[in-house]
């Protein structure tokens, strides 16, 4: 199984159950790297200050909250440390509710909760109780510094933890206004008929990501056909003959053209902030 992203314990009343948290879902999207089209080198992201025209190292960054356009209040590490974070390593159960009471719009992300060593017994007990009573437990948990509302529910012999959006994170403006639309009984009957026709049990295995599969096939074909772009073996990898490398670097500068703004910028990094010693 994947690495636990969190460990701590469930606590309710006098009982604590040591548990570990694992992501229950994962995105399977094929991801791409952004390359420089002319040479095939992977692009780097740089933090750039457009005022000083310098690249900014982490130690010169600050976190600013934009309270009105272009105006920021800066928060320091000390400020963040002052904030309260109550449930760091515990999942505090606060109430038991029926699952159908929670609208799916609140669900954010699903995690599997697994019992830590020697905690199987109390874990099994909680799971069975939830199954029998057909209940879910609301709780709070802190993951990566952020306290989140969550719900624990039984699912195929496991307790699943669903993080929930807070109510104020669910938008109230729905963009829908059909109060004045009139629907006749005949039209409604027609809709019922269509629905009946397509009604069947939900089987997730029937659904596939067609786009991803097509993309994977395309990549496979490209690899076989050797239409592959590979970065030139310079710089970080393999030692080139220095003279050859210098010649290439000169050619690269020529290709850059002369009055090109981008290359101009590149030749003038860090006007003031490069700290010169020598």
């Amino acid at each position: 199984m994947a690495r636990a992203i969190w460990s701590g314990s469930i606590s309710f009343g006098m009982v604590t159950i040591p548990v570990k948290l694992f992501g229950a879902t994962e995105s399977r999207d094929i991801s791409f790297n952004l390359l420089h089209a002319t040479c095939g080198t992977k692009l780097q992201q740089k933090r750039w200050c457009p005022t000083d025209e310098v690249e900014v190292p982490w130690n010169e960054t600050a976190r600013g909250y934009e309270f009105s356009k272009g105006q920021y209040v800066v928060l320091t590490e000390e400020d963040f440390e002052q904030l309260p974070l109550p449930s760091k390593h515990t999942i505090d159960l606060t109430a038991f509710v029926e699952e159908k009471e929670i609208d799916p719009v609140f669900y954010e992300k699903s995690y599997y909760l697994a019992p830590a060593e020697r905690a199987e017994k109390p874990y099994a007990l909680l799971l069975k109780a939830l199954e029998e009573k057909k209940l879910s437990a609301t709780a709070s948990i802190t993951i990566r510094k952020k306290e989140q509302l969550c719900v624990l529910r039984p699912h195929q012999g496991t307790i699943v933890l669903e993080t929930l959006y807070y109510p104020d994170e669910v938008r109230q403006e729905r963009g829908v206004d059909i109060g004045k639309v009139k629907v006749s009984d005949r039209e409604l009957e027609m809709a019922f008929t269509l629905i009946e026709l397509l009604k069947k049990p939900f089987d997730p295995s029937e659904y596939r990501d067609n786009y991803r599969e097509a993309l994977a096939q395309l990549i496979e074909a490209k690899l076989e056909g050797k239409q592959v772009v590979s970065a030139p073996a310079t710089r970080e990898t393999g030692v080139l003959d220095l003279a050859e490398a210098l010649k290439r670097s000169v050619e690269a500068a020529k290709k850059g053209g002369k009055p090109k703004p981008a290359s101009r910028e590149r030749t003038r990094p860090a006007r003031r902030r490069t700290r010169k010693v020598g």
Partner: protein
Amino acid sequence: MSEVGDVLTQLETRKARFVLSIGTHNLSVTNLDKVLWPATAGSTALTKRDLLRYMTRVSPWLLPHLAGRPLFVTRYPDGVNGKSFYQKHWEDPPEFARNISIYSSHNEGDGNYLICENLATLLWLSQMAGLEFHPWFSRIDLGADTRGLSLKFTGSEATLDESVLNFPDFVVLDLDPYEYSGKEGKGEEPELHRRAFKRTTELALRLRELLRGLGLKTFVKTSGRTGLHIYIPILRTFDFDAVRNIAETIGRYALQQWPKDITLEWSVERRTGKIFFDYNQNSRGKSLASIFSPRRHALGTVSMPVEWERLDKIYPTDFTIITAPELLEERGDPWSDILSSKQNLAELLEERTA
């Protein structure tokens, strides 16, 4: 009497202000007893008079290196421990100071730049507590190596791109040790110390060998602070973009060879414990402190050219505004032939890769 001897004699007066005559030029000098380098545990205080004396004494060697090059100057009106100004433009220079109009993308217009070609200009700058001299790596003079390049420097970036000022005489490699002595305050730059400097000289010697392998002659000088500057004189066939790429490529190659010693990291933190190989100065309008330039250092050190063979025997504080002129008079300038040693790098690379 020579101009230099004449000026030195005049500076022997006890007067704190007088009109100095330099050949046919007159210059009001003031506050000559102003301390620019306060006394330290191991050194006496140095004044503006000491600075003027120094500049006068080294001028025969220094002026050829400044000729034709736009010059930036760092001024320290309150001495090396006070605030400094990096001055690029001069509104109303005296008649003996040559100046030239050059387009500046920073100002989005033409600006007045200084070119220091005589002792009077040098002393005028010193009188204003101009301590650090930063000449461009390119110059406004045409030569056998500048066919097709223009002498038009105004109006736009594009004009400047096509001009002789876009073609430097040198590839420069700036080696800055980021090894801390342990005495620095938080956020301070590393101080000069023996171990770090020794490591820097060793790296410089290895770079010299590497470049010699390509058939290139190199020149080295102390930065006057903690590091070393290596110059490769070249014919002006490559523009700044190409030269910067060349310097970066040398840096990356050296990084592969000696990853424990070199860093090309932009972030100061990640340079710690290594020698920062700075190739970024190879840009139009950027510069390093000139040969013989005084530096911001408590002891009044200067950037001093050194013979490669003697590099392992010297230490940056050997060369101050007091000691450097004597050494120079004794041994001469190891860089005197740098401009007659310009190498055809384009041709050399063709040969090596054929």
